[in-house]
């Protein structure tokens, strides 16, 4: 195998009697992006926590850069994998620059202070995420979208090959959702990052990510190129929701249809591409 992340026969359950993830295998090629999608409770965040070593698999192996996750020390793993978790505001009023600088903790000198190189990397991360203009403001005073960019800046400043993100766009408006995905795509293309994103937004995932891992509640899963994984039938099967599928240019999109959706009975699931006239 040649993936920078290799997952083999992975199973996990929070209590011994139940398994939430069962016999999952996949790999992520270096420099590509993978979206993990699926209904609530399917184990998306669990899978992310397994990938970064926060949780330990019940069986199976996860390899990062060809070595099992559990063989890394905390420090060594932090040199390979950076994580952006669902955002929250810390108790003490750390400023943006202090927050981003923390990513360099493991590279501090013995007295616990940052080097010139650390500062340069932090400045680049602030630049790239467009957060440099509020560098001295406390994190708590920023909007949700700005704060999320700061946390991504922190992950970038950790200077790792792999970036894991847990629902980075959950609380953001359309513009900021797109902004975050643009930023991640830039990081992938310009800095050769491997990016794994847990997301609820199948349309943005389809648009921005190279591959999709669709995780069902019954630990069924599908992985592959977006166009192979996402079909109205597949989505209905996994999410239990009918969708209206369309296509704009190369991009596929899905609109969920609820019970009260107008004309939902008539539109149904048209074959892909049928909306292009």
């Amino acid at each position: 195998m040649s993936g920078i992340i290799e997952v083999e026969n992975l199973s996990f359950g929070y209590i011994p009697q139940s398994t939430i993830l069962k016999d999952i295998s996949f790999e992520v090629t270096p420099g590509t992006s993978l979206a993990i999608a699926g209904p609530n409770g399917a184990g998306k965040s669990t899978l992310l926590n397994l990938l970064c070593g926060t949780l330990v698999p019940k069986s199976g192996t996860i390899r990062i850069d060809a070595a099992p996750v559990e063989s890394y020390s905390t420090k060594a793993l932090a040199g390979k994998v950076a994580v952006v978790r669902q955002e929250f505001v810390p108790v003490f009023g750390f400023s943006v620059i202090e927050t981003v600088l923390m990513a360099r903790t493991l590279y501090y000198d013995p007295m616990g202070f940052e080097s010139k190189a650390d500062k340069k990397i932090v400045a680049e991360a602030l630049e790239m995420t467009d957060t440099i203009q509020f560098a001295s403001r406390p994190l708590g005073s920023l909007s949700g979208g700005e704060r999320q960019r700061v946390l991504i800046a922190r992950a970038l400043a950790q200077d790792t090959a792999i970036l894991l993100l847990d629902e980075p766009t959950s609380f953001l408006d359309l513009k900021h959702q797109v902004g975050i995905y643009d930023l991640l795509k830039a990081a992938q293309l310009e800095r050769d990052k491997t990016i794994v994103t847990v997301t609820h937004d199948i349309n943005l995932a389809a648009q921005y990510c190279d591959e999709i891992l669709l995780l069902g509640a019954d630990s069924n899963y599908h992985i592959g190129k977006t166009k192979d994984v996402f079909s109205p039938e597949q989505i209905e099967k996994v999410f239990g929701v009918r969708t209206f599928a369309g296509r704009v240019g190369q991009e596929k999109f899905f609109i969920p249809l609820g019970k009260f959706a107008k004309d939902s009975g008539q539109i149904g699931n048209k074959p892909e591409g049928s909306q292009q006239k």
Partner: protein
Amino acid sequence: MRTALALVVLAVVMFVCLLIGTESVSLKAVFGGVGAQESVNPDYEIFVQVRLPRIILAAIVGAALACSGVVFQALLRNPLADPYILGISSGAGLGVTIAVISGLNWTLWGRSPIAVFAFAGALGTVWLVWFVGRLTGKFHVTGLLLAGVVINAFFSAVIMFLTSIAKAEQVHATIFWLMGNMTEEDFLVLWIGAGCVGGGIVALFYISPQLNALSFGEDDARSMGVNTARTRTIAFGVAAAITAIAVSLSGLIGFVGLVIPHGVRLVFGPDHRQLLPLSSIVGAILLVVADTVARIIVAPAQLPVGVVTAIVGGPFFLVLLVKYSRKVSWLK
């Protein structure tokens, strides 16, 4: 840089406070040696035997309490945490009560049993809280806090029960001890205390970058490469130990451990690499000043220093809070 400056201020404050007191002391007389007609030099006696140990003790205790206040706030991610939150105060109080009521009068390395019992009670209680807290999960902040609060309440009830069946003078002795006082003449004990507290503060300073990361939570800290279990164990153990030392040297002095960290954080920001040493020094300064005030303000009687820290420090902190709080512009 700021830390070095603060150290200079501390030295100056300690020196000035040495000179202040109900008896005026002339430096010339202190170092002039014994006069021809006297067998003792009263200025020297007051200066070195009475005031110096008090001031050193106040500095040690102030530094220990402020520093462990910073650490407990970071570990528990709770701005209301102080060094006593996990049961150290009630544990020490229980130790003292037991020592007083059982009328022990032996000494251990020249220490009265009261201080030894206070130290043992403080550390024993913290260990108990830590142990119970661990039972609630790997590192469950809420579980730890709840265990601390409940054990505090339980021991307070035991203390009240014991004092209600004790003799009046025993109760008085207990209360007097608990109020906090700065009497310690034995320089050896002082230097040992200073060494332990100083060493503890240095150890905590070395993990201050990790404390920064821990403020963002367990998982975030770990993904930034922090060995959280090790950091927490060191931080918790060292902070509890220096608090227990402070408590057994001087009784319970409130306020310093809660308010100094907040005050320093408001003015200089939350970065622990700076917050920790600065808080320690500012805590030392505050307690030296407060103790000097306690010595002289109602002379020849003396106030418990805890009263002074709260009365002087409270309003001062409120001023800081209002002045430095990050204002929200649209809220007039």
